[in-house]
């Protein structure tokens, strides 16, 4: 990342997102802890129980396991930040769908609402980081040749040569 703001925000949001993974994992763990195989099968978790028991296995709602191929990094700060912004919106939309499905359980609903709000804030912060990076990349670059230093190279006075170079 070309500027310090975006480095910091990526580090800090990334850290928070890992905590969100723990929160979602805890919700799943608490909902399935101690539930019998029969009950799990009744609510459509028979296949999950067969493969994973009640361990927390990171996968999409449709059962597709998480893989690193979901993460795009293009070696380009603008493309990468746009990807992060899109990921925040996708997460928000997913939380909204989960909220629609969990309307009857306040213990699940409240943390989901909290997580949804965090994605909105992260989107805002990433947007500010993107603006900052774009401004930085759009800046005109000036390259300075130290004329006084070059002139002094032809001068026999070594002291003044040294001083001029250091002050520039």
């Amino acid at each position, binding site marked *: 990342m070309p500027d310090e703001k975006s480095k910091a*925000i990526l580090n*800090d*949001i990334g850290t928070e997102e890992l905590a969100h993974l*723990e929160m979602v*994992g*805890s919700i799943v763990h608490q909902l399935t802890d101690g539930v019998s195989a029969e009950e799990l099968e009744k609510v459509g978790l028979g296949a999950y129980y067969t493969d994973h028991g009640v361990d927390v296995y990171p996968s999409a709602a449709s059962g597709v396991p998480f893989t690193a191929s979901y993460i795009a990094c293009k070696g380009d700060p603008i493309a990468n930040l746009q990807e992060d912004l899109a990921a925040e919106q996708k997460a928000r939309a997913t939380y909204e769908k989960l909220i629609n499905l969990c309307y009857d359980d306040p213990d699940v609903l409240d943390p989901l609402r909290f997580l949804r709000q965090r994605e909105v*804030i*992260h989107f805002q912060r990433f947007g*500010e980081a993107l603006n900052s990076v774009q401004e930085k990349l759009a800046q005109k670059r000036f390259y300075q040749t130290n004329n006084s230093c070059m002139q002094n190279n032809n001068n026999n006075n070594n002291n003044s040569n040294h001083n001029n170079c250091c002050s520039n």
Partner: protein
Amino acid sequence: MYENINNNMSRETLMNKIQSINFTVIELGLYLDTHPDDQKALYFHNQRANELRMLTDCYQKMYGPLSILCPCDQWRWLEEPWPWEKGGNC
């Protein structure tokens, strides 16, 4: 500055307070990442971060470590429940 901290707070109340101030500090931190010159936010971050440190010290003295970085006379890190377990504050 810390008039809202007292030793009579229950473990649960103290933990709730720590979690809520911890969140405030992180949220102000994210804001400051992209607004480093906002003096008001910096002031609040300072205030809350100090309060968080005090409350965390207070909790750890009374109820045991909140992180593996906490120095202990005996190894209390193994004590249950963990945060995701029943009765583990979540």
